[in-house]
């Protein structure tokens, strides 16, 4: 009997040998990642590369079983690899890096693996790895958990549904007026305290970007008040910066008495609502509470608010500004107390600091068991994806995905739901109607070629019609289309292209029945050290599809385009009012992920999505975290 005896009884010697020669990529060494690493090691997978940017935190230790208290602040990937040495029979390579770092991980790097496992906690990275797998044609096992719920989804590029084939949950949005004038739930007060109040008083210059169109109200009196309040807060900010502790009572009175009284004067908005009651307690009892797990009384919230505001004011003497961080207790206490005081004013039940931390920090509950089950499923299904299980069809459309049906109250007699994989969505902009290749740009090419030169080479080589568009999909900026040629004369070196930039060429001929060339995405590889002057374009088969006007018109004129444009703009504005990202512990790339999400939610040619994505509307987004 040997280490591999059991495994060989299940998959056979030949498959076992293949597994020993398989090199896999594991993206993420967190909740699912730790479990998956253990499972893959015990499956004797030959070589495992594991990537994670994060460091270990105390709150990880209830589930990330490879980490200990002594490992806090250490990098997850490296620590995980050290922790498994005792039972590892595989070659392990750890990277403390962002998987989206194109310098560390260019496209070719992804190409070395037989399969990729996603064990990620944010949308942006999931989308990115999904796309890299579409570029390289590598199968991906996508997975995720939230509390008792979890799922796994194998993805065969350009065959089965990819991560972007289905719409992802849109972020919850609140109109500005709900946050600023008429909160009805505690979350409204938390968003107000964190995004508006804290941002105004302590954070680096903060422009809320409120404009008349996206307030969610038509009441001119209310709009005027909202703007006035913003200006007055700038005055409060000066009080805060003064460092004079006696100013705290001014702040308390302004926020919770004067502003509420002003609000009460706008009679229209109280016709159908219960009127708020201005704060009656303005003095500290001198006895601030300490137990963060209890729901405090109004007096206790006021006491703590006064105390923590003073602390933050004195911190401003040494720190130029303070950003909200759920793990910075002063900032958390300020937001919690302010939210609870406001909720009292609006007759909404208060909650403990512990509970508000979850709301303000977008904390997703996470447990060992769900992660273990999901990682187990991910590694198990990968045996079929790699065609290592016999006596069963391992064709992509015969392989199941799975999600926790019982835990998610979808079924009582099925622990898991396990539908077979769906074919890719023909309307998906990531997996369908698109070809992908690498485009190498050397220094001489960057220096000598204009965008016009590049466009000409590409359209003649690949057979695009005269009307096409070019989009930099990483920045979501339009470089060229039939009525935007301002940048065509620019040298390529002036575009700030990097390795990892992706250019999308799309046929924009809009004649009913026209044969459009399938779009191509070019992954740019910049080689400054190469002196090659000739641009090399790889051969690609030319696939076409037929253009049908969305309006069924025989010929589409410019007016129609204009109508569609306006329609989209309204939709975009709707999203832009105020946005609360609900994402699993979001990283720094929130803004980008949200942008991508928004532009993906607009189902129109990418060129239009970009025109809509004006910098102005980005600033209107208010993000939690």
């Amino acid at each position, binding site marked *: *009997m*040997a*280490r*591999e*005896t*059991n*495994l060989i*009884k*299940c998959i056979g010697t030949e498959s076992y040998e293949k597994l020993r020669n398989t090199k896999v990529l594991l993206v993420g060494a967190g909740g699912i990642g730790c*479990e998956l690493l*253990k*499972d893959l090691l*015990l*499956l*004797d997978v030959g070589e495992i590369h594991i990537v994670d940017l994060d460091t270990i935190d*105390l*709150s990880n*230790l*209830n589930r990330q*079983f490879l980490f*200990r208290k002594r490992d806090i602040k250490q990098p997850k990937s490296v620590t995980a690899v050290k922790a*498994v040495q*005792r*039972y590892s029979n595989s070659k392990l390579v750890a990277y403390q890096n962002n998987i989206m770092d194109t310098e560390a991980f260019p496209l070719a790097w992804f190409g070395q693996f037989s399969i990729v496992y996603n064990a990620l906690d944010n949308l942006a990275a999931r989308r990115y790895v999904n796309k890299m797998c579409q570029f390289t044609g590598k199968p991906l096992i996508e997975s995720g958990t939230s509390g*008792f719920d979890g799922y796994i989804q194998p993805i065969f590029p350009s065959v089965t549904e990819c991560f972007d084939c289905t719409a992802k949950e849109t972020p919850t949005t609140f109109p500005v007026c709900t946050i600023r004038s008429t909160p009805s*739930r505690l*979350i409204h007060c938390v968003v107000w305290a964190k995004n508006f109040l804290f941002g105004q008083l302590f954070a680096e210059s903060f422009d809320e970007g409120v404009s008349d169109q996206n307030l969610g109200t038509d009441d001119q009196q209310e709009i005027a008040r909202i703007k006035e309040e913003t200006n007055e807060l700038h005055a409060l900010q000066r009080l805060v910066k003064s460092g004079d502790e006696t100013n705290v009572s001014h702040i308390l009175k302004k926020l919770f008495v004067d502003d509420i009284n002003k609000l009460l004067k706008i009679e229209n908005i109280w016709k159908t609502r219960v009127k708020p009651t201005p704060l009656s307690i303005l003095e500290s009892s001198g006895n601030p509470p300490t137990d*963060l*797990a209890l729901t405090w009384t109004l007096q206790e919230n006021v006491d703590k608010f006064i105390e923590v505001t003073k602390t933050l004011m004195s911190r401003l003497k040494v720190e130029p500004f303070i950003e909200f961080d759920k793990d910075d207790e002063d900032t958390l206490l300020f937001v919690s107390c302010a939210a609870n005081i406001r909720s009292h004013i609006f007759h*909404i*039940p208060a909650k403990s600091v*512990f509970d508000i931390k*979850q709301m303000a920090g977008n*904390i997703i*509950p*996470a*447990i*060992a*068991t*769900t992660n*273990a*089950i999901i*990682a*187990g*499923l991910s*590694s*198990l*299904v990968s045996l*079929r994806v790699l065609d290592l*299980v016999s*006596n069963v069809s391992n064709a992509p459309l015969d392989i*199941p995905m*799975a999600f926790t049906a019982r835990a998610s*109250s979808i079924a*009582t*007699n*099925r*622990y*898991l739901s*396990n539908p077979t994989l769906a074919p890719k969505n023909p309307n998906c902009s990531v997996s369908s109607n698109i070809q992908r290749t690498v485009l190498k740009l050397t220094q001489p090419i960057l220096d000598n070629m204009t965008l016009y030169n590049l466009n000409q080479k590409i359209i003649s080589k690949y057979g695009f019609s005269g009307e096409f568009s070019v989009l930099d999909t990483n920045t979501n900026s339009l470089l060229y289309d039939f009525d935007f040629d301002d940048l065509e004369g620019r040298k390529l070196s002036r575009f700030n292209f990097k390795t990892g930039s992706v250019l999308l060429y799309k046929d924009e001929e809009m004649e009913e029945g026209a044969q459009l060339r399938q779009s191509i995405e070019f992954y740019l590889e910049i080689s400054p050290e190469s002196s090659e002057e000739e641009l090399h374009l790889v051969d690609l088969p030319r696939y076409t599809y037929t253009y049908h006007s969305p309006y069924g018109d025989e010929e589409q004129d410019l007016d129609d385009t204009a109508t569609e444009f306006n329609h989209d703009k309204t939709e975009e504005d709707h999203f832009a009012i105020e946005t609360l990202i609900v994402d699993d512990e979001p990283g720094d790339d929130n803004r980008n992920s949200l942008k991508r999400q928004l532009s993906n939610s607009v189902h129109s040619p990418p060129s239009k999505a970009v025109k809509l994505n004006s910098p102005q509307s980005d600033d209107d987004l208010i993000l939690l975290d």
Partner: protein
Amino acid sequence: MSDTGALSADEIALYDRQIRLWGMAAQANMRSASVLLVNLGAIGNEITKNIVLSGIGSLTILDSHVITEEDLGCQFFIGKEDVGLKRVEAASRHIEDMNPRVKLTVDTSDIHSKDKEFFSQFSLIVATDLMPAELNTLNTLTRELNLPIYVAGINGFSGYIFTDLIEFLATDEKLKSARPEELGKHSPNKDIVKLSERKDEEKNAVYQVITTKHSYKPLNELLRSAVLSNQLSRRQLKRLTPKVPLTLTLLQYGDYKDIEFEDYKRKYNLMCKQLGLLIEETKDETIADFLQQTAVDISPVAAIVGGAVAQDVINVLGKRQSPLNNFVVFDGITLDMWVLEL
């Protein structure tokens, strides 16, 4: 560390992400529980990891096995240098290191040497990797002691969980639907005994609070009376994974090593009939494949089955929602995982 009373700030910080799921009260309840795990094999490793991380009060592991090369292929508390040592002794310091708050006891005696008094000191028993004859003996004992027991095993690509909590009152909350639950018989092993409502102001929703009485039966009785035609649709009876009758048939043998193919096949066909299944005749090859994998451990299946057991143990100890009732079969090829009331 005190066993009773509120959680400390340290505990709240450590268990933050799970308290947000099951609440402070459940976390405190778990701390006063004492669990016995029988055998630290592949599933035992998973269950131990999960319940130790979750902050159970105390865990005793009973395992007399000596580490073999084979153990290295599906266990993660041991390494190459431990071959020849007792499994629990080699693993214990790594288990303790994972969460020093949990009181861990390891016991290398043979399960057959343990008397009633030994088992009576625990609040719950989890038995893994036991042969059916041993399971039945243990199950008789847990019935006498009125102790809840979880049983789990892996057979290569498939795994099972059997639960006997004797009787259990569970409270669940469900968004009130157009067809609310009614008092009375709910399913073969469940009766709804109390209903009330709760309004959630923050979410602006009404929940039905449902108290369910769960009834269980011992393993040997379950095998004799198991029926599925009372709970599955015709379509499900036709398409049910054969891993369900294959597993139930297997548990009719005292020891797997006594199994002879033709005898097993005959018992298997009888089991299909007893259950009321309408599945096509199972190929000899499928049966032979299954028999070749009896008691064969592979790590992903252990992770899934062990994860489900641990989750339910935590749930029951935390006194939360309805527990598993009473037989789960996992098919690692199709990823079917049925929760059947047998």
